[in-house]
C-alpha cells in the first residue's frame, strides 16, 4: 500500500514529477561525469603504463620521460649495469628524434622512436612486421594517410636539415615493413619506429637514449628495484608507475578539483530539487497525511511513503542520468582529448562500474534525506488542530 500510495501521488502531478526527474537526470549526469573524471585520467594512464608490463621508466636525472630534449649517455654501460640486478628481466632503451621524409614535392616531418623491436613497449603491430634490420622502418596510420605510402615501399629518411641550404643530411633509404599503433602517440601525429642503432647513427647520438623502459619480475619489489637503479646509475631518475601517476596527478590536479567541486554542486542541486518538490507536495497534502494519522497509520509508514516518492524520482532521474552522463562524458572527453601531445589512448572520462555505483549511492542517499525531514514534520503535526485548520482552509 505504501508503494501504491507513493506511485499514485507521483502520478497525480505528472508534469511536475517528470520535470523533477529531468532535473535530477541532469544533476545525475553531471555527477557521474565528475566521478568519472576524478578517477578516469589516473586509471586510464595507469592502464596505459601497465599495458606492456613495464613497471619502471628511466629518464635523464630530474626529468620526466620525453619531457625535455635531454638524453642519457652510455647506453651500453647502463644496460650492462642494469643486467646485474636479477629482478630486472627486460630492458628497452628508446631514443626519440625527428626525421624528414621527402615524398614527391613535399617533405614530411615525423617523430621517430629508435627501439629494440624484441623488447620494445612503445607500439602494437597492426600489420606487417617489426623493423628488425637497420634499413627498416615501421609507420603509423597518420603517416600512411599523410604520405600515401604502404607496407613494402622504400622511402628516403633524413635527420639533419640545413635551413640555409635547404638540404637534408644523413639521408638513407628505409623499407616500410609494417604499420604500427603507438601506445603513447598523440592524435594526428606522424610517427615511425626504427632500430635503435639506426636512429642513434642518423641523429648523431651514439650510445644515447631518451629513456629506458624496465620490466621487473612479478614477485620483485618494484620500489626496491627503482631505488637500486638510482643508486647504480646516478645520472638518471627512475620512475615507477606510482611516481608517474603522482606526477600526472600533480599536473592535472585542476581537473580532479574541478570534478570534486562540480560533483558536489550537482549532488546538492539534485538534493535541493527533490527536497523542494517533496516539501511542496507534502505541504499540499497535510490534510491527507493528518487524516491518515487519525485513521491509525503510523508516522513511520507515512515517512516511508514519502521517502519512496523521493526515491522514485531520484532513481528514475539517476537511470536517465546514467545514459545522459555517458553521452556528455563522450562529448567532454572529445574536447579534452585534443590536448596537444596527449596520447590517444588516454581518456579523461573512463567509465568504471564503481563510478556509476558511487553516483547512484550518493543520489539515493540524497533522495532519502530529501524525503525524511518534510514527511516527519508533517506526520508529527497535532492531528486535531491540523484537521481543524485544514477544514477552515
Amino acid at each position: 500500500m505504501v508503494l501504491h500510495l507513493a506511485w499514485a501521488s507521483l502520478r497525480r502531478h505528472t508534469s511536475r514529477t517528470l520535470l523533477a526527474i529531468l532535473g535530477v537526470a541532469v544533476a545525475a549526469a553531471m555527477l557521474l561525469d565528475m566521478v568519472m573524471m576524478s578517477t578516469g585520467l589516473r586509471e586510464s594512464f595507469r592502464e596505459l603504463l601497465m599495458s606492456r608490463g613495464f613497471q619502471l621508466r628511466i629518464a635523464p636525472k630530474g626529468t620526466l620521460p620525453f619531457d625535455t630534449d635531454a638524453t642519457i649517455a652510455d647506453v651500453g654501460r647502463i644496460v650492462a649495469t642494469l643486467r646485474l640486478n636479477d629482478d630486472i628481466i627486460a630492458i628497452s632503451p628508446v631514443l626519440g628524434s625527428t626525421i624528414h621524409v621527402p615524398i614527391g614535392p613535399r617533405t614530411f616531418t615525423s617523430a621517430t622512436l629508435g627501439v629494440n623491436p624484441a623488447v620494445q613497449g612503445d607500439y602494437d603491430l597492426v600489420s606487417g612486421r617489426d623493423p628488425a634490420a637497420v634499413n627498416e622502418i615501421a609507420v603509423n596510420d597518420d603517416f600512411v594517410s599523410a604520405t600515401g605510402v604502404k607496407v613494402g615501399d622504400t622511402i628516403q629518411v633524413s635527420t639533419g636539415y640545413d635551413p640555409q641550404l635547404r638540404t637534408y643530411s644523413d639521408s638513407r633509404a628505409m623499407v616500410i615493413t609494417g604499420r604500427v599503433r603507438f601506445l603513447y602517440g598523440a592524435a594526428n601525429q606522424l610517427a615511425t619506429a626504427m632500430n635503435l642503432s639506426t636512429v642513434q647513427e642518423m641523429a648523431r647520438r651514439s650510445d644515447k637514449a631518451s629513456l629506458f623502459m624496465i620490466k621487473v619480475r612479478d614477485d620483485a619489489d618494484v620500489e626496491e628495484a627503482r631505488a637500486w637503479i638510482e643508486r647504480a646509475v646516478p645520472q638518471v631518475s627512475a620512475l615507477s608507475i606510482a611516481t608517474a601517476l603522482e606526477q600526472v596527478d600533480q599536473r592535472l590536479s585542476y581537473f580532479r578539483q574541478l570534478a570534486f567541486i562540480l560533483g558536489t554542486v550537482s549532488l546538492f542541486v539534485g538534493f535541493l530539487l527533490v527536497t523542494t518538490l517533496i516539501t511542496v507536495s507534502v505541504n499540499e497534502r497535510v490534510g491527507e497525511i493528518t487524516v491518515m494519522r487519525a485513521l491509525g497509520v503510523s508516522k513511520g509508514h507515512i515517512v516511508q511513503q514519502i521517502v519512496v516518492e523521493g526515491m522514485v524520482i531520484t532513481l528514475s532521474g539517476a537511470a536517465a542520468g546514467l545514459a545522459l552522463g555517458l553521452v556528455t562524458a563522450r562529448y567532454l572527453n572529445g574536447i579534452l582529448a585534443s590536448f596537444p601531445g596527449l596520447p590517444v589512448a588516454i581518456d579523461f572520462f573512463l567509465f568504471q562500474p564503481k563510478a556509476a555505483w558511487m553516483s547512484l549511492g550518493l543520489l539515493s542517499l540524497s533522495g532519502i534525506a530529501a524525503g525524511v525531514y518534510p514527511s516527519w514534520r508533517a506526520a508529527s503535526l497535532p492531528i486535531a488542530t491540523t484537521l481543524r485548520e485544514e477544514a477552515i482552509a
Partner: protein
Amino acid sequence: MLVQIAAALLLFQPPQQRTIAIDERLAADAGIAIGDKLIVSAKPGDTGGDTVIVSAIVKRGADPAEIARSEYKVRMHLDHLQTVAGYGDRVDRFAVATRGDSATSIALRDINAAAFGFEAHLSRDIAVGTSRTFQVVSRFHKAIGVITIVASAIFLLCIMLLKVEERRRDVAALRLMGISARTVVKGVVTEAALLALVGSALGVGVGWLASQFINWYYQGLYRTPLYFSLVTPSIVTFAVALSLVLGIVAGLLASLRLVRTPPLALFGR
C-alpha cells in the same frame, strides 16, 4: 641538478664575470640568493660544469604553458649558453622588435624574402599556435558552462512551477473575484523577474568571491601570477541577462499553466 636552459639574452659579459639570473621559484626552492655560486652543465648529474655567480632573481611571467610544470628557468648570456650546451654559433630563434605595426609588416616581408631557410612569424601568431592547451581548457569550460545553464534552467522551471502551484488557491480566489488572467500572469512574471534580479545580484557576488578564491588558491598552488578566473562586465551582463530571461520564461510558463485551469478546479472542486 639539471638546469633548464632558456632562451639567451642580450648583453655580452666578459668571460671572467660569468653570471646568471635564476627565477624566483628556483631561488625559493633551493635557497639560493644573489651572489651564490652554482655549477651549470648541460649533462644531467655532471658536477664538473661551469661555476657561475647568481646576479639576479627574476619574477616568473604569467605564462599559461608553465602551469603545473615544475620547471625552473635560468637566464644566461648567449655565448655562455652556446658554450655550455655545445651548440656552437647557433640559436633557436631571434626575437625582433620593430617600431610600430607598419614597420613590423615590412620587416616580416623582408625577412621572409631574404632569409635562407628561415621563417619570420608575428609573436601574436606564435602565441595563438602555442596556446592550444588553453584553447582546449577554454572549450571544456564552455561545455561545462552550457551544461550548467541547462541544468539550472530545468531546476528553475521546476521550482517555479512548484512555487506558483503552491499558491493556486490564492490565484483561484483572485480569478473568482474578477481579476483577469492577464493581470495574474503579469503579477507572477513580475515577481519572477524581481526574484531573478535579486538572485542574479547575489549570484554575481558569490561568483566574484569564488573567482577571488580561485585565483588566490591556484596562484599559490602553481606559483604563478597568472589569473585563472576573471569576472568581467560582459560576463556579468550575460549572466544577469540570462538568469532574467530564464526567470521570466519560467514564471510565464508556470502562470500560464495555472490560469488555464478553471478557478473551481484550483480549489479542488
